[in-house]
């Protein structure tokens, strides 16, 4: 008994070390005074100030944030509409097919998504002269396309667990369908929408493959800049940048997780009985 639990704990520790040790090393080395990324030369924040002077990285970071904000917002709106359409419009032909298809981008290899979108943009340009030069706008559209699927899946699962009688009761009391959606459905799926927005935001900020396919010459997102710099060797500047990104992503994930947890508790509470 005793021995097996020691074994279990060391396995657990090993697993977590495997996951988090590299990240911790990276964060520690972002405060390294030496130029070489592998030798410790004392504590310093000089790479953080160097980062502030690097306009290429700062521009890329701003662009990434902009794209993430716009695409997360648009994906949340579209994804919620898709979920409502699939879940609340009754039975119609092809509903199962649509429900399956909305989840397809979640399992599609990013390379294929990126390539297909690139081909789409190129042929659209030839056919109707839009979207013009590829850049921030094409990346945004591409990000909306795949993160919308995540939002739709999250919102749909919330809708599925919601008691349909709530909406019927509101309608029974004189609420017209649109008013019922505003009064009852939206407030109840709001936590799921918030979680979906945060996930879409993080996914967009994180994305390298699809961005690389759909970006033009002028627009480089942060992950693209980092990736191209790493090819020339890891500098402590990148470590500093990575540390900042990890910080932002962690906050995002924690908030998203916390909202979902709260929502689940709220759902579970009425069943607790009295």
């Amino acid at each position, binding site marked *: 008994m005793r021995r097996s639990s020691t074994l279990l704990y060391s396995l657990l520790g090993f697993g977590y070390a495997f996951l988090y040790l590299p990240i911790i090393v990276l964060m520690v080395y972002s405060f390294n005074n030496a130029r070489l990324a592998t030798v410790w030369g004392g504590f310093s924040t000089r790479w953080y100030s160097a980062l502030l002077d690097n306009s290429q990285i700062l521009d890329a970071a701003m662009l990434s944030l902009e794209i993430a904000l716009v695409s997360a917002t648009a994906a949340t709106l579209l994804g919620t509409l898709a979920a409502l359409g699939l879940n609340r419009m009754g039975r119609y032909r092809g509903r199962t097919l649509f429900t399956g298809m909305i989840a397809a981008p979640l399992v599609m290899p990013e390379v294929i998504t990126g390539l297909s979108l690139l081909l789409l943009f190129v042929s659209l340009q030839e056919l109707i002269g839009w979207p013009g030069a590829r850049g921030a706008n094409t990346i945004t559209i591409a990000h909306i396309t795949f993160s919308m699927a995540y939002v739709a899946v999250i919102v749909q699962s919330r809708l599925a667990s919601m008691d349909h009688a709530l909406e019927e009761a509101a309608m029974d009391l004189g609420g017209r369908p649109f008013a019922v959606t505003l009064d009852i459905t939206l407030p109840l799926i709001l936590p799921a929408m918030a979680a979906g927005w945060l996930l879409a935001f993080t996914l967009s900020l994180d994305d390298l493959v699809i961005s690389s396919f759909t970006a033009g010459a002028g627009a480089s997102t942060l992950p693209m800049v980092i990736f191209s710099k790493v090819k020339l060797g890891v500098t402590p500047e990148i470590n500093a940048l990575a540390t900042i990104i990890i910080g932002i992503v962690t906050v995002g994930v924690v908030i998203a997780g916390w909202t979902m947890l709260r929502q689940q508790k709220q759902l579970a509470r009425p069943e607790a009985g*009295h």
Partner: protein
Amino acid sequence: MTDVEPAKSPGQGGACSGTPWQDPAQKPFIELQSLSKHFDDFAAVDDISLKIYRGELFTILGGSGCGKSTLLRMLAGFEKPSTGRILIDGVDITLSPPYERPVNMMFQSYAVFPHMTVEQNIGYGLKKEKLPRTEIASRVEEMLQLVQLPELAKRKPDQLSGGQRQRVALARALIKRPKVLLLDEPLAALDKKLREQTQFELMNLQDTLGITFVVVTHDQEEAMTLATRIAVMDAGKFVQIGTPSEIYEFPQNRFIANFFGQINTFDATVVASDALSLTVRLDDSGTEIRTRHEQDLAPGTRCVIGVRPEKLLISTQAPTRDGLTVTRGVVEDLAYYGNRSLYRVRSQNGRIIQVSAQNYQRSAQLLLEWDDEVFLSWNSDCSVVLTQ
């Protein structure tokens, strides 16, 4: 809800006076005209016609999947009938959407809005009518008094008990002063003690407000105590419609007889028949019985005679009174409940007959013992002819 009056006998609740369903001059308040609902090939509700009168507490009773919920949902407007019409107070509402019907519903799950306070929940219907704030506030206050929850106005539903949530749902459905209140299994989610209390409160409330109630339930006891009339439903059709006592005392077939309490059955053959009564011969004792039965059956038809356990008299000496049907048996088993005893008697042909007897004599010893030879008798009028 005002104080419960325990003196009031159950089964006679409701603002509806007398028996309007027996008076052909009365105008029905709710009328279903050959209503059907098909889901693909399956008929959930199959060609039902029904008249419900103002102030009735009408109960639709049936097992799961019998179509009672679909019927209620068509009344509320959540399902469109495949064929037929629904009229309320003379107005055809067959195709009106739920938000335009003079009908409100209390849902089985109560469906109290979790993100609104008790007050907001109750006031929702009036807010949708765009009534002025002050009027909404005063009518919400009135409803809170009616369901005895004034101190909980600011609470959220997750801070309420099941019984309190049921009252919120009730107040919310009543505040719009509907012509008809639909109740879907109103007592199913409550524990036994609360059920009995709420049952009386519902009846009193219906009496005070004079609103026509349509209740759907699977619980025959609930139906018996609440209803002015019961419609027993099976496979999308009504099997029998009547007052609780009509359904208990004059069940139309074996299904209903067994559904409401217990009944002893004896095989018999029809000997003679006229417009109102029937004479049959019991197989095991050969006794001939004349009893009320409106259906005309040809002599020689096989049938079953049903007798409720409490209608049977048990005695050690042969009864001599006229108009009794007598058979003999041996006490096989008995259970003493204090106020009454339950006997299982094996008749001459080996069939078990249940007898429920009031213990009207005081005695420290059992009046009857195991293996005693007994006579069973009943008033021939109490025999029910069951055809199926």
